[in-house]
């Protein structure tokens, strides 16, 4: 039996159907990322699991306990879920300590302080104990929000785009901290994000949502390297999808391809002394190198190169071609 089971969830807001019969399951201790564009239904899915929304139909169970179904509905406060919102949602009138121990207010004072300090020490925020939310930076607020959620000892942690309001450096630091905490706590986690990079760093499984449907599921690395469909190819990597037509027919026959649609990742194309000739069409600087646009026998493809290529033509080798 899976830890979390979501079966045939349908959810509409007015006339708009946001989730169209979603089903998935998840094991205890696993970290799942729900990813997709804005409006794909990922936040709604998370809110349904937390009990903040009611589905039109479908069931949600944890360890066999029915949380939401046609007959049953367990209120959010009885579900024991940890939820971290994208805008931290710290209580503005309470200091950091009171925010952290909010859910464990009935515990003895010493225990509450120990719990708060253990987390604060772990993240180097011990000096913020008496600060109020308005005195904290964006990254600090989000860390405290995560600590507050963990202090309640939830059975499932739900992270709703926890990095979306942070700058690049703060985001990278927070990711490292979060990974450390999740590794230590061994807490089943569902994270939603619209950034594929977040799932590479934190998730061991990914579900890709598009317009209320699950369009891909798998290990993030596999989905990056071997996209199983258009959606995963576009979302996870800069892979090019080639559809056979008159202009690239020569390319398909040269590589002996019988499929009509193929996908080639930029990392799969390498410069080689003996290989197929490719014309350089342009360069795009991508920070750690260049994305070079090539014309190989009428097929327009991208290749990653650390240095800028000055020759008008080069010879390349294609290491992997994935059929879709």
């Amino acid at each position, binding site marked *: 039996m899976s830890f979390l089971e979501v079966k045939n969830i349908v959810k509409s807001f007015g006339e708009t159907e946001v989730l169209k019969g979603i089903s998935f399951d998840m094991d205890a201790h696993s970290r799942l990322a729900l990813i997709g564009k804005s409006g794909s239904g990922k936040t709604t899915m998370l809110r349904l699991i937390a009990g903040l929304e*009611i589905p039109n139909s479908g069931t949600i169970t944890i360890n066999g306990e029915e949380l939401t*179904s046609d007959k049953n*509905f367990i209120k959010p406060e009885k579900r024991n879920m940890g939820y971290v919102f994208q805008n931290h*949602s710290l*209580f503005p*009138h309470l200091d950091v300590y009171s925010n952290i121990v*909010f859910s464990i207010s009935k515990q003895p004072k010493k225990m509450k302080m120990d719990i708060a300090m253990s987390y604060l020490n772990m993240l180097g925020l011990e000096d913020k104990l008496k600060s109020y939310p308005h005195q904290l930076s964006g990254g600090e607020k989000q860390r405290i929000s995560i600590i507050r959620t963990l202090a309640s000892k939830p059975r499932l942690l739900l992270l709703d785009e926890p990095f979306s309001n942070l700058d690049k450096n703060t985001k990278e630091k927070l990711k490292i901290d979060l990974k450390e905490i999740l590794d230590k706590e061994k807490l089943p986690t569902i994270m939603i994000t619209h950034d594929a990079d977040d799932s590479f760093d934190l998730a061991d499984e990914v579900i890709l949502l598009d317009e209320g449907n699950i369009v891909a599921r798998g290990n993030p690395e596999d989905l990056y390297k071997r996209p199983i469909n258009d959606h995963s190819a576009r979302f996870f990597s800069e892979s090019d999808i080639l559809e056979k037509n008159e202009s690239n027919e020569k390319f398909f026959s040269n590589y002996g391809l019988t499929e009509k649609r193929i996908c080639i990742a930029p990392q799969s194309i390498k410069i080689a002394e003996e290989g197929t000739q490719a014309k350089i069409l342009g360069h795009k600087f991508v920070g750690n190198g260049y994305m070079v646009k090539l014309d190989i026998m009428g097929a327009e493809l991208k290749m990653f190169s650390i240095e800028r290529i000055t020759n008008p033509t080069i010879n390349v080798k294609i290491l992997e071609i994935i059929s879709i």
Partner: protein
Amino acid sequence: MGNSFHIKWKSSSKLWLILSIIFSLVLLIPLGSIFLSIFETVGDGWSEIFDGLLQTYLGNTLILAFGVSFCCLMFAVLPAWLIANYRFPFSGSLKWMMVLPLSIPTYIIAFLYGDIFSFGGEFYLLAEQIFGIGIKTIYFDIFKIYYLIPILSSVLYPYIYLTCLDSFENSNRSHIESAELMGKSRFTIFRKIALPLSRPAIVSGLFLVNMELLNDYGAMDFFGIQTFTTGIFRTWFGLNDLGTALRLALILFSISFLFIYIERIFRRQAKYYEEGNHAKLTKTRIGFLGSLIAIIICFIPVTIGFLFPISKLIYNALTTYHSVDYFEYTVAMMNTIFLAFAAASVIVIISITLIYGERTGKFESLSRLISLSTIGYAIPGAIIAVSMLYFLSGLKTSFGIFGFGTLIVLIYAYNIRFMATAYSPIKSATDKLGMNSYETSRLLGLGNLQAIWKVELPVLQPAILTAMLVAVVEILKELPLTLILRPFNYETLSTIAYQYAKNEMVKDASIYSLSIVAISILPIIFFVKSKKEK
């Protein structure tokens, strides 16, 4: 399942849900009962009214509505544009001084100007003393509908001024700046861009002006202008004909709904008109002559609506303070404060209940019911009073409960009339707060009540205080409802001021009127201060 009553019921907070449904119905039933009055038998009063007075009521209501609307536009729109766009001496002070006339109730301004321009009033005395002009040469009868129009407009225009100022300063900034970059003068921009774009804001201000106008009883009665409100009073108190009073109330109710309908249409348009940048416009400095004209244009409404009447009130109070019955004054003050605070507290508590019923419940139809239950702000007090009486007499027939002439009934009626004054600021604060804090505390294991008590109420405190203050002041100024529904011999500041004025003792009413204005000015100061802090 999303549509299943069972699951929605299970996921909602029952306490808020049940209480908000009960309160909404309690607020709506008396108003709804007025529609049943169509089946009531009417007395002789109805045929008298139907044969002649109905046209007079309708005619006067239309003249006042058009006249006051036009006059308020004159007083409000141009000053709002000048203050929003130009920098001139006193422009900063005038910005908030323009709002001050709101603190003077319509009946008090009517008493004051009626007194000044009545035969033997200060206007004629001064004309004789300074210019040697005899009273008979320049005398005119002030108690005419056409003179009442500018008098009422001088205290009602701030409703339009505030909505226009917001529209000129904030909402339509990007459009105004685009036109400016195209080389258009500010005057052309005012005519061709700002005015058309501010139409929804102007209509929303006009709506409030006309609602206040329809609600007025004291000024109409003092000036002897026959309108639906005075008609309701006359048929009820004079002819003891409740059936006719109810029928008049029903007609007035229909007129109010027409205004509400028009306002809703324009408010829907506002969504398309008021998008874009919300930063403030850069103000242009103007020269000496321009500044002088701008100062005069802005000072005219402030002088007529506040500076002059307040000076006159203070002068009257200083000359009559020795003849004031201080026992009567103290009792009236205590009655007023008790009534205002008791009713405002109930209004605030019910507002919070309605808001949380809507906020935590999962039923969409409940939101519509709650929104409808706050409609009393657009219903004239006389209608609410008549419908209350009708409803109470129905209760007496069915259950033997009456309660007419008790404070409970008066507080009940205030709740119907002023629910929106507390509901709106608290609702806007909860909307701004969003659901995250509430949902987080629920997910951290707190029950519904605990989440609200521990997390939301501490944050909502300023909004609740504002709501309380606005409700207190509205109740304090209220006249028609209080006059009809108060317990026998229960006097408040407004009822005594009205009675003195009615008995042609306007000067003796001054200390009471001044007290009302002094308290009414508090939320305006509060409002200006919070705007400045923002």
